[in-house]
């Protein structure tokens, strides 16, 4: 298959003694929405700067459509980036900003304008924005202008460096969906960087999770969610219930802290590690309801999360989290039973 558009082979980057990223092997397919996720300091910004051509890898190769581009500077790569700060030109109008890459290529003024207005429309901005100043645009409008400018460049790969991080929640949600929509319509390869796994899940076809300069796991949102490679990935998505366990026999796990026994989740190959149960996979049990593992505890806190409610339940000297639909009859201080079935848990290395 030659539909790999971007490939990284053993890429490493050092700044003096400091290792920013190491042993990066990745391949991105043509037309894919690929997201690099990691906390700050995980090396994702270093990664994107190398991919765009603003930094050179210290070791390893970057291939675009099969060609080595290590030494090709940013202005000669068929890629374009939407910056975190957006980097719109404050001295140019919206129209001039969008036309900028076309102007550099020497396109005729008339063609440029037609294309710019076409792009404005595509991004749900009226033609009136063409002659507006950048300072007259709101945060969301600036995002759209930045995206329009990048699309005007018509790159083979479009990179995004956390452009949505400064926006409020609702606008971010809207733009996430729009971005995904535009990616599908244009069929372009999008490589996105974010520190929010939630954001990555919404948009991406595949996700790579980075930590301390290395890639921890690559997979579809489903795979990442259901089969996290380790505790770091599992926690990255949000709060989870963790149990340090080791195999007792072929069917049971032994809790290293409490000596309690849990059934081994199906298809587990690890012998010792973390048993992960997500709060939404945990169930509140009625008196005679059955579950593979069962706990008794007292509700210590409740948090309403919109349509769902999360209970923090005290079981002996640890807290467990369980999520349920809103409208449960439990209050703080109530005694409850909770538990999970073996196939709702995952066993992963620590």
């Amino acid at each position: 298959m030659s539909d790999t558009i971007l490939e990284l082979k053993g890429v490493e980057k050092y700044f003096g003694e400091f290792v920013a990223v190491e042993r990066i092997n990745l391949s991105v397919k043509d037309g894919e929405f690929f997201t690099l996720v990691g906390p700050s300091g995980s090396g994702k910004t270093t990664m994107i700067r190398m991919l765009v051509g603003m930094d050179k890898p210290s070791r390893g190769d970057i291939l675009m459509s099969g060609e080595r581009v290590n030494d090709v500077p940013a202005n000669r790569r068929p890629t374009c980036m939407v910056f975190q700060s957006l980097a719109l030109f404050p001295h140019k109008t919206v129209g001039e900003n969008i036309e900028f890459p076309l102007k550099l290529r020497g396109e005729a003024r008339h063609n440029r304008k037609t294309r710019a207005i076409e792009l404005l429309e595509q991004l749900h901005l009226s033609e009136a924005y063409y002659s507006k100043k950048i300072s007259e645009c709101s945060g969301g409008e600036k995002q759209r202008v930045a995206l329009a400018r990048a699309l005007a460049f018509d790159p083979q790969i479009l990179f995004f460096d956390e452009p949505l991080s400064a926006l409020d929640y609702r606008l971010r949600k809207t733009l996430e969906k729009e971005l995904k929509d535009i990616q599908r319509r244009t069929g372009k390869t999008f490589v996105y960087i974010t520190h929010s796994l939630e954001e990555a899940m919404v948009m991406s076809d595949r996700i790579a999770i980075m930590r301390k300069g290395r890639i921890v796991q690559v997979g579809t949102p489903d795979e990442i969610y259901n089969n996290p490679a380790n505790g770091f990935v599992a926690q990255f998505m949000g709060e989870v219930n963790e149990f340090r366990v080791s195999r007792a026999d072929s069917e049971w796990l032994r809790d290293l802290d409490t000596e309690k026994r849990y059934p081994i989740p199906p298809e587990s190959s690890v012998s010792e590690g973390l048993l992960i149960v997500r709060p939404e996979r945990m169930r509140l049990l009625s008196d005679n309801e059955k579950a593979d593992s069962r706990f008794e505890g007292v509700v210590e806190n409740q948090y309403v999360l919109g349509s769902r409610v999360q209970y923090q339940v005290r079981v002996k000297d640890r807290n467990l989290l369980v999520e349920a639909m809103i409208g449960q009859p439990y209050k703080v201080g109530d005694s409850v039973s909770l538990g999970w079935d073996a196939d709702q848990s995952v066993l992963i290395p620590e």
Partner: protein
Amino acid sequence: MMNAPGPSSLSKARKDSESVIPMPGSPTRLQAFAAWARQPGVLLSLPALVVFLFGFLGPLLLVILYGFMPARSFGLDHLPTLENFVTVFQDSYYLSFAWSVGLALATTIILMLVCWPVAYGLSRIFRRSMILTLLLVLPLFVSENVRLFGWVLTLLNHGILDGTARTLFGWEVSDLLYNVPVTIMGMVYVYLPFMLFPMALGVSMIPEACREAAFDMGASRWQVFREVEVPLAMPGILIGALLTFVLTLGSISEAKILGGQSVIMIAHDIETAFTYAQNWPLGSALSTLLILLTGVLVIGLLSKLNIDKLLSRK
């Protein structure tokens, strides 16, 4: 007022003044003025206002008035006349004006070219280098004339440069002084900081991401310069250009000391009129014209440049 300080009295005073303004001629007008004058801003600006009035506006007015007095008179008690201005336009003073404007223009343009790379380095590469900034500022602490005479000693026939070249290599490096190029060199040398620092400020206002974004979209080095760097640094460039142009327009020492009066600048003519010729009204008329010329240029440029917007921009 004194008995009831705090926000309530303040708002009361404001209410009073508001209700008063729409009724001109009413006896409370004085109170309104008093309320206005009591504002902290008015009081605090008083010292500066007095200095401005007696130290700047007053003398300026005197100079302008003297320009309309009969030639060689000392006093403002004569009938106003335009004879000085007639003299200025009939005589060859236009030449001095032309030289001043020409040299100022040349100096400004040369300084723009020379200072850009230095400003770029200063604001982006040697950002924390106090020593470099100090080296550039230090010459300002030495009198301009002293520095210019230093150049004279260096460039003089049999001076430091010529003498050294003759002794060591047998080369003759003479006749460097007393011409137009050396005058311009002197001006460029003296007014460099006035272009450099505003320009460095302008360069530091270019967001790094804008530069990178342009480059990322395929711009060449030259295109980044023309499309992004120059327009974004323009405020600094304009302020620098304005400062150097106005300063060189009124300069005198460079043409006198280094140029050896091979060109006469307008400031020199003014000096001569006031001192040697003892013709204050003529000097005043020339000064008035120079102020007018400078004013038109400065106001013309400043109106295109919104300082407030500039400073609030991220």
